[in-house]
């Protein structure tokens, strides 16, 4: 590890900006980088400097500019102003291959790999080492060597699409190593990892630092950052707030720096006034198709006025199960009961008619028609019921409704005619919520309701869910974020490999036990047996 500067917490200026000339220890430095997208300022005059062998944590809430900054460093975006200095040489990368050649690699949050090719083929594509003939043997040999050296076990001949997310992540790191990058950026790498794999990733990162690589580690999980970073940079609203030494930081300090004040208080949750069972899913099986996970023997039960959280790492069948409950996927075995009635064979429309609403996880691709207006999107659940007749649509009534909802849900930057694609992520989410909640549902399925939202918007969504719960709705919340689930849920169930595992948990929740279940370790008891009665 390199020597560390120790700024006092109140200092706003990073002395590392001005290293001694000929220092040779600074691997990467960013000077005055600014970037705007239209009216949005993503990066505002950012200055940063990282030494060789230093692991730098980069934290900030969604929209703070971390990804934009690292994208500029990696050559994906071209900055409006400023430059990147690598080993003393000034650069303004126009393309990712420029950055690659300068020795910078980035491991993306969602693996950016060609799924239909093998690991070796993906590696062969790396610009800085590209040869004309595809020499499979040579690349495989080097990959095995690197894998050994850094503890990244992956079979070079496997097809990337068939690898698990942790394995794909290892491939991305190998890509960076194969490209001889000295500066490696990791963007939210633990988001897709089960708790067990997080530990080995942290090990790998420390090893990278030990080998003299400069590592930038973006994460919103402060505990992890505090564990592996040497120094931590906090960003907010596109600018660097401060860079602190690990020794001087703790979760509270970082959180306060991230938000710029006091962290919004979560209101005290009143215990739920549980009513009758509203939604019961028994031993449901959903066939797997291309790119989807098979669901076998999944069971859950939610009562009116209760929030059931479904925990689990992404990719363990949660969306498939939610789709099956909503009526979008056919169930090959098992039963789904809504308000006492069997809805297993009913269509989406019929279930909606009985009071089921759902907020899908992919708001841009599946939840909203981005090119259509707010009124249109809200109208998707109302066009047949609001005014008019069965055959015609009363657009005026839809717009009036949308107007009311925009106000009620505080949807900013929108009129009834604004195309939904123009809104920010948080406001898009509000449109979806408004649409579903305005149908006065008896049961609501919410998948990843706060994905990509900043703290303020996320808090709003949580408020709404709790309020809806208090009004007697039965809510299922799916989220890969354990903190969120532990905050919202009255009861918790875990999904692993398409099944609900372990018994449904009541408060207080054991994070330890949850982590085990999420990682596939059985701890006795099964959710299925609960529902035999």
């Amino acid at each position, binding site marked *: 590890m390199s020597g560390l500067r120790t700024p006092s917490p109140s200092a706003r200026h990073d002395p590392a900006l001005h290293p001694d000339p000929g220092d040779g220890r600074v691997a990467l430095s960013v000077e005055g980088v600014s970037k705007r997208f239209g009216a949005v300022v993503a990066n505002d005059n950012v200055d940063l400097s990282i030494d060789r062998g230093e692991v730098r944590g980069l934290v900030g809430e969604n929209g703070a500019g971390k990804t934009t900054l690292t994208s500029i460093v990696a050559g994906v975006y071209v900055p409006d102003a400023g430059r990147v200095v690598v080993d003393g040489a000034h650069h303004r990368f126009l393309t990712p291959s420029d950055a690659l050649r300068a020795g910078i690699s980035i491991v993306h949050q969602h693996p950016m790999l060609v799924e*239909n090719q093998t690991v070796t083929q993906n590696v062969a*594509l790396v610009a800085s080492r*590209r040869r*004309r003939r*595809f020499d499979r043997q040579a690349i495989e040999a080097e990959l095995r060597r690197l894998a050994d050296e850094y503890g990244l076990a992956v079979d070079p001949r496997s097809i990337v699409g068939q690898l698990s997310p942790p394995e794909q992540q290892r491939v991305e790191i190998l890509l960076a190593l194969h490209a001889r990058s000295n500066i490696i950026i990791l963007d939210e790498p633990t988001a897709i990892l089960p708790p067990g794999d997080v530990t080995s990733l942290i090990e790998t990162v420390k090893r990278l630092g030990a080998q003299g690589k400069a590592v930038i580690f973006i994460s919103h999980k402060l505990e992890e950052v505090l564990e592996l970073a040497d120094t931590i940079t906090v960003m907010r609203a596109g600018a660097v707030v401060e860079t602190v030494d690990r020794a001087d930081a703790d979760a509270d300090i970082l959180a306060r720096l991230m938000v710029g004040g006091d962290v919004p208080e979560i209101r005290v949750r009143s215990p739920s006034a549980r009513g009758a069972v509203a939604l019961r899913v028994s031993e449901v099986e959903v066939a797997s198709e291309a790119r989807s996970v098979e669901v076998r023997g999944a069971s859950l039960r939610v009562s009116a006025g209760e929030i059931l959280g479904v925990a689990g790492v992404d990719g363990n069948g949660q969306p498939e199960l939610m789709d099956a409950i909503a009526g979008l996927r056919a169930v090959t075995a098992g039963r789904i009961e809504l308000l006492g009635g069997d809805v297993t064979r009913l269509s989406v429309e019929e279930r909606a008619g009985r009071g089921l609403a759902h907020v899908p996880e992919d708001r841009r691709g599946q939840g909203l028609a981005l090119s259509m207006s707010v009124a249109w999107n809200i109208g998707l659940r109302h066009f047949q019921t609001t005014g008019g007749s069965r055959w015609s649509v009363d657009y005026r009534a839809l717009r009036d409704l949308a107007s009311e909802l925009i106000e009620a849900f505080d949807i900013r930057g929108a009129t009834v005619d604004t195309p939904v694609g123009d809104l920010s992520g948080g406001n898009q989410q509000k449109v979806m919520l408004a649409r579903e909640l305005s149908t006065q549902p008896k049961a609501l399925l919410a998948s990843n309701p706060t994905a990509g939202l900043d703290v303020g918007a996320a808090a709003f969504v949580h408020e709404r869910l709790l309020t809806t719960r208090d009004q007697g709705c039965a809510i299922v919340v799916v989220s890969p974020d354990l903190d969120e689930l532990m905050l919202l849920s009255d009861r918790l169930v875990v999904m692993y490999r398409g099944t609900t595992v372990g018994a449904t948990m009541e408060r207080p929740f054991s994070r330890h036990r949850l982590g085990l279940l999420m990682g596939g370790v059985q701890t006795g008891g099964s959710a299925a047996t609960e529902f035999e009665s």
Partner: protein
Amino acid sequence: MTGVLTAGVIATAPIMLAALGGLLSERAGVMAIGLEGYLVVGAFAGLWGAHGYGTVVGVMAAVGAGLLIGALVAWLCVSLRASQVVVGLTVILLAAGATAYANFTIYNAEIVSLAGLPDIAIPGLSELPTIGPALFDQPIFWYFAVLVGLVMILYFRQTTSGLALHATGENPFAAQARGIRVTTVRYAAVLASAVLASLGGAIFTIGQGLQFSPTISAGRGFIALAAIYLGGWRVGPVMAACLLFGLADVAQLWANVLGIGISASILSTAPYVATLVALATLRRRGSMPGALGVPFSREQRAVAQ
């Protein structure tokens, strides 16, 4: 029987060149709906060049025409990011209109056709019973088409450039992350597809000596597209599919050989019906390029912020 096979193979050649060209474009992520237009343009350019200045110039003219129209398509699809289906349809209409106009203006209803190209026999192989002459005693353009196919197989398997092209069509963001210039690759692929398909079109006029009309290709560009689909976007199977359709194309000859007496008109539907049936029933093996048809934008934020 040999006669039918020979004719079928000749009919296969333009389809194969168009399909191979289209394959390059589609593997890179750009839909090749406009193949029909390239065929027509190549047919006319080839005729004009060869009629006035000889076969070689004719071929060069076809290549040149392919480059021009390919550049237009590439600009529309890759740089302007227009809907690739719409562009394809537009190009077909444009090709029909432009060649009709040029044909009238230059030749003014004169009957113009060329002599066609002679057969070249490969010693030994062309003596094989039944299939020998059909496969190995054909004009040069057949060998060329097959050669292009073989080169493409090597290209995709053994070169990094081929891997890069494949990557561009599967996941352009990943390709970009590895330093591949997606725009350049797609431009090159589209240009190559236009050139190959134009050469395919030139086969009609230069190779077979047919008279030009704007409907000379009669849907073969779309048959080529169907062949790409049926072949699962893999070179070998695509070539096989082309052969299948080429043989269907000479249905009238089949009818004669097999002694079936169906009216000529009905038989003319054979290649199209065959394609439809194949599309509806055969399960394709390979897979569609992941990002096919999606315009690529460098600054598109792949992950929602």
